[in-house]
């Protein structure tokens, strides 16, 4: 039963995952091999990997957009298609169902963006790739950026699941989550980002589950 729900979530996320994979591939190609198609924001082949190439911001931007779009898709798509009425009366606890949805979404974001960091790290660790030393500890700021993505995902999930009179007020949790994620990312202590992200994500998820259980469909 849970397997079938996980497969359904993965299948429905496929278009967004495909677009995100293309974006990640392009960014990695541009900063690793200098492949250029767009403006300077995505590039950095001539700079020090992870230290002076703004990679942490790239992680935050791509991951943030992926997290927000995926969470909104997971919630709004079912709403628009009316499939909540097909799904939610099935003999599964509603809390379990939405937790599973969130777990799949968070896993997709976390795995994809972690893969992006690891792939770039592996490239940077190979001899002859760039004219600067490389230590894996240099990736910590990128992991700090990665660690705030669950806040954005959970905030977007809450935005998508909560009923609101108009789109602006519906997106308020996402706006709040994005601001909080930004401050957690730019402050200098990684552990504060990790702890803060964990707490905020838990708060947003519990609010989202509470709304999902009690709202009308």
């Amino acid at each position: 039963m849970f397997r079938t729900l996980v497969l359904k979530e993965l299948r429905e996320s496929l278009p967004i995952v495909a677009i995100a994979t293309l974006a990640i591939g392009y960014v990695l190609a541009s900063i690793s091999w200098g492949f250029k198609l767009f403006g300077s924001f995505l590039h950095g082949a001539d700079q020090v990997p992870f230290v002076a190439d703004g990679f942490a911001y790239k992680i935050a931007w791509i991951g943030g957009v992926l997290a927000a779009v995926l969470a909104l898709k997971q919630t709004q798509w079912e709403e628009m298609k009316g499939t909540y009425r097909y799904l939610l009366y099935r003999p599964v606890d509603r809390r379990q169902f939405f937790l599973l949805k969130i777990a799949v979404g968070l896993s997709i974001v976390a795995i994809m963006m972690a893969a992006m960091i690891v792939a770039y790290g592996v490239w940077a660790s190979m001899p002859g790739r760039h004219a600067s030393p490389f230590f894996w500890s240099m990736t910590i700021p990128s992991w700090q950026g990665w660690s705030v993505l669950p806040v954005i995902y959970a905030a977007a999930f809450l935005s998508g699941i909560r009923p609101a009179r108009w789109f602006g007020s519906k997106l308020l949790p996402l706006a709040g989550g994005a601001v909080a994620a930004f401050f957690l990312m730019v402050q200098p202590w990684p552990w504060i980002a990790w702890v803060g992200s964990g707490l905020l994500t838990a708060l947003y998820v519990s609010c989202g589950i509470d709304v999902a259980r009690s709202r009308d469909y």
Partner: protein
Amino acid sequence: MDALTTSRLTKFYGARPVVNSVNLAIPTGCVYGLLGRNGAGKSTLIKMLMGMVQPDDGHAMLLGHDVATMPAEVRQRIAYIAEGHPLYDWMTVQQAIDFVAPFYSHWNGRLVDQIVDHFELPRRRKLRRLSNGQRAQVSLALAVAPEPELLVLDDPTLGLDTVVRRDFLESLIQIIQRDERTILFSSHILGDVERIADRVGVMVDGVLRVDCPTDHFRETVKLVLLEFRGAPPEWPGSEGVVSARHVGSNLELVTVGFDDQLRRLAESLEPESIDVLDLNLEDAFIEYTRGPKRSLPLFVTEPNDVSYARPQGVA
């Protein structure tokens, strides 16, 4: 035992009660047709029964369990077909079956195969490529496969052409006859209700105004034609009259029953003639619901059961 009961079930949208203190009891094995015009509150009532909408007041019991706290094991015994047959369009027919089956411990795969074969549904075709009728047939197959004791259908034949609708209903009748299943379904199509419902409920502006056996409703609501030589007089107003309107030189009354008291009152207006016409269910429903919003309540209880005769619409 009642398969479904509601007590003072109420839902407000803003300040307006869309379902107003509905008390309903459907005995096990009954096929109950819920009627009402658009916006009468049928879908909201059904959504509350299925836990999709939270009531503002009152509660509902399905198979003896409160909807708000119903465990998953009980929900295995209840099936629901939502209005419009929502399905995952990207799935094929077979994928939809494979998706739903693991949720249920009693999944009758043979029955699904029978229904799919009977309707000649293409198993490998995406649901988005099916016609409305085929989607309804897939919904029906998925709903009955767990062999539910209670089947709730929200306007299941909406948008289907006559032939498909007839096929759908005949399949439904066969399924009903297999076991003593309880079915609650809402519909706009009175012929469908007439064909399969033992009992009807009519909702008017969120209030359950009628809850009685189908035949009783049909036999009780009468159209009374009072013919006058000139312009007809105003109807003085009385209990038992749903609406009164002038049509040429006639005064047309829609009544719930036409007893001696009403006859005497009609005769006191000195009409040329009084004709009392029986109505079919569709005419009875139309006459009952289209008039001024003061249709009379019509509740009939079984002699040994007083649970139906409860106040409605007092929220």
